[in-house]
């Protein structure tokens, strides 16, 4: 870990300003991702601006939906009555991730910002375009069992590893950010993360110095019929091989509208418009769920070691929809 200047910010403007002023400065929230990466010399900030004491951890009703503070802890968010009642999908997604201790530390903003778990990204002796642009992608022709099957480029095949964001994508959340100039803007969460393309070093569309202040959830009709499914290499405390955030709005036995988001398959949560279209207006049945699953995975392009994700993805979509529809 390189030496760095530590400052404790007491107000958002100062925090954003401080980071904006120094290209090598970063925000410090829960620290669970950035400190790990700093120890590994993957992240090398020379200044950390501690935002933990900013008053940005409120969870409250807003605009018919709910606004969750960027600095609210994952565990407090998951267990907030407003979330549990209205957005159980989000609760399930959060508690499927990491561990009790980590969720007590991790903030919602930091969680959206978490970086990939690609092994090559973590090992500074290995090539990795995301960590060190131009060095090549170690995983493309290396070990890529845990890598992407959608949307990758030959520059990077990493996945976004988080769980919470998969639910946020399904719930059409909006990310509220504050620029160093004090201006606020909102980014629909679907546009928050990027595909790797030629610039895999960029995970998302946040500008340097922009501070996430809140995540806003619009009013949702999915509370009754949603499910978060996570398949991993052990029962808990592991990242997803494949995850599915499924949400249905039912009208009798029919699907009025649906959300299907796959996690662990792309550089960002992979929302499947194809699957959602295949479900809308159809009966909530295993058969139509299967069709939706086929549609969801139809465009998948697996790598040498992750073809299983295609089949696993299909089955996971079916299972998640079945659970959401309460058919199993």
């Amino acid at each position: 870990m390189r030496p760095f200047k530590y400052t404790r910010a007491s107000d958002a403007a100062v925090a954003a300003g401080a980071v904006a002023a120094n290209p090598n400065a970063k925000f410090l929230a829960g620290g669970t991702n950035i400190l790990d990466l700093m120890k590994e010399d993957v992240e090398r900030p020379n200044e950390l601006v501690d935002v933990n004491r900013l008053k940005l951890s409120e969870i409250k009703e807003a605009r018919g939906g709910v606004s969750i503070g960027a600095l609210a802890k994952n565990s407090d968010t998951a267990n907030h009555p407003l979330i549990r009642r209205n957005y159980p999908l989000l609760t399930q997604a959060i508690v499927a991730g990491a561990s009790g201790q980590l969720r007590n530390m991790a903030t919602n903003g930091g969680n959206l910002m978490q970086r990939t778990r690609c092994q090559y990204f973590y090992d500074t002796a290995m090539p990795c375009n995301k960590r060190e642009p131009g060095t090549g992608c170690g995983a493309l022709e290396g070990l890529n069992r845990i890598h992407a099957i959608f949307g990758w480029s030959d520059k990077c095949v990493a996945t976004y590893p988080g769980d919470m964001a998969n639910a946020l994508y399904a719930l059409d959340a909006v990310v509220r950010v504050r620029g160093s100039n004090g201006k606020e803007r909102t980014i629909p969460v679907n546009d928050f993360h990027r595909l790797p393309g030629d610039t895999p070093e960029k995970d998302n569309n946040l500008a340097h110095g922009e501070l996430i202040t809140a995540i806003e959830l619009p009013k949702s009709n999915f509370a009754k019929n949603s499910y978060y499914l996570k398949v991993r290499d052990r029962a808990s405390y592991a990242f997803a091989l494949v995850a599915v955030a499924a949400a249905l709005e039912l009208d009798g036995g029919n699907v009025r509208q649906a959300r299907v988001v796959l996690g662990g398959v792309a550089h960002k949560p992979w929302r499947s418009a194809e699957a959602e279209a295949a479900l809308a207006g159809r009966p909530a049945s295993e058969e139509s769920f299967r069709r939706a699953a086929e549609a969801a995975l139809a465009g998948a392009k697996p790598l040498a070691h992750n073809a299983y994700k295609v089949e696993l993805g299909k089955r996971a979509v079916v299972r998640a929809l079945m659970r959401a529809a309460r058919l199993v």
Partner: protein
Amino acid sequence: MPRYIGKEMSRVDGVAKVTGRAKYAAEFRAPNLAYGFIVLGSVAKGTIKSIDTSEAERAPGVVRVFTHLNTPKLGPKANTEYAPPRNAREQDKSFRALQSDRIYFNAQPVALVVAESYEQARYAARLVKATYDAEKHTTDTEAVRESARSPSQGPPPKPRGNPEEALKTAAVKVEAEYRIAMEHHNPMEPHAAVAAWDGDRLTIFDKSQEVYSVRRHLATTFGVPEANVTVVSPYVGGAFGSSLRPNYYPALTAMAARELKRPVKVVYTRTQMFTGHGHRPYTIQKIALGAERSGKLTSMIHTAVHNTSTFEEFSDNTTGFTRQVYACPNLFAPTLIAPVDLPTPTWMRAPGAVSGMFALECAMDELAYKLNIDPLELRLINYAERDPESGRPFSSKALRECYRLGAEKFGWKERRMEPRSMRDGRLLVGWGTATGVWGAFQSPASAKITYRADGTAHVTSATSDIGPGTYTVMTMIAAEYLGNRPEQVKFELGDTNFPRAPAQGGSQTTSSVGSAVHGAALAVAARLLALANQDESSPLKGAAPADVEMLDGRLRLKRDPSKSVQIPEVMRRNNLAEVTETFESRPSEERRKYATMAHGAQFVEVKVDPDLGRVRVTRAIEVTACGKIINPKASHSQEIGGVVWGIGMALTEATEIDHRFGRIMNPNLQHYHVPVNADVHEIETIFVEEDDTVVNPLGVKGMGELGMVGIPAAIANAVFHATGRRVRELPITPDKLL
């Protein structure tokens, strides 16, 4: 009737461990301590072309940066970095870091940065820049499989009977190939040493399973008499074989401390552990079984190939137990090794046995299905009444009873043979079984007892307690034979100031060190008897040491307890405040006439989600026949540990190498998956005690390894039973079951 042996007892070190007072290697303080941080290389083979330490040296707090260029030559011969001794007499040439520019494996240590603080050392380590002349490397055992050869150690394996011929004519055959991923021990405590010199005397706190071997290693490394080196290792946070050999870091730490004339601490990072202490080798096994229609085995051909390093030979003896499990007249079971550019493998819990038995016990299951004979039945049909290898009788073997009792308890009768025939809702249920086997080993060991007139005793032996409960069991044995209470016994271990004991490995501690403590206690009694009988009027006149026992401060005749003397009085009469005896126990001659082995039957239930490929081990029963059980509570914990390790090996653990770079790519606990709490469910142990008067005076056999041996096979067999899928490659991750 024993007072303590065989009764459950909580750990005597329990309070120390739950309050955080137990001190592990990295936790010892020393004045003026400096922190070392290891720098790892980045090619798999070749030489270091250049190494630039200038930036690191300029970093704040840095005391010195050691590389091969400025590190004194260590060890008996300059430039010998490898080849550990094969026995106690042979010279110790085990791998020492920073001795030349030669690179033998990726992530080999190339520098040690020492600084005033841990943070400073860690940072400066990143500033060391090395370049290499890389050479073509091979890390894939599959690629060198054909060139595998017999280890040069020991006689080349000879076939029994004519296995090839017998296989050809066998009525039923199974031929299959099995693979086991490379695995790492990953004890929770990272390896660490704190070294301090006082002139040419070295004190080192180390994580070790054998303090004497570390002492010898360091004495040869630094050319000082062994007596000058004190190795202390009172608590070990798990090791599982990873601290059986002296790893490279104690010498590195002591070197830095000597050069800098101040104490130095070096702690492996989790990542450094993956190339810092060896691993369970990647193992490919080919098995051919031939049998009569009745199920009787007529031929067994079991060939294992696993990796070793290019600079040392390591054999896991994968197929060793294959020769002793089933009665079969025709057999060939060689273990071959193939050098690759990786660190040398080492023993890892149930070494060889768990790998070999995975293949053999899966093949037996496959054979059972071919024959349509119940898998347990098949094992009984081929039960070995005598050791098939040597023809000697077993000193004891209650395996048949284990099979039967386990089957009863598990409800095996309810099992339907057909795969995919049992369900729990959407989940497929599978029941599998396998045999566990391990040697009842014993090595020479010594213990010293000082017994005081007040009934208290101080007992020492340089063994270790990596978790099995050695502190507790030795306390119990001492109290049993000194006739005092466990709370009057203070047992200490893990220090070269104590009498020599073997490595805590191979499940031999209780048999070896326990026998020494037992012997020392009897020696105390004999001494007291001699003292008592100096008195003409002693009621014990004429009694031999074997006729007496100590109990509650009295020495008394076993067959007539009314004849006794007060020990404090005897001691007072002789002006003695304490009596000290050291005893060395050795394996008896008698043992040679027998095969001495521990056995067990292991049963597991799995539930498999057929859609998602998720496997849960919902139930496991260990039925264990390993002589006498001293402390059933800790023994049960050992069996539980064996099951958890079996779950890891079967379902989650694999060290992954990118062979293009020859580099381990998952050297951490996020990508290397050891089982977590949610992976583990009910585990039961049934002890079938054996009266074994041959193995050792206490009648104990080891059990730490035994409990793991059959589990991976039992799980794989249960997965087959549940799903109809025979996965022959561990670990069985969800992708393999889709």
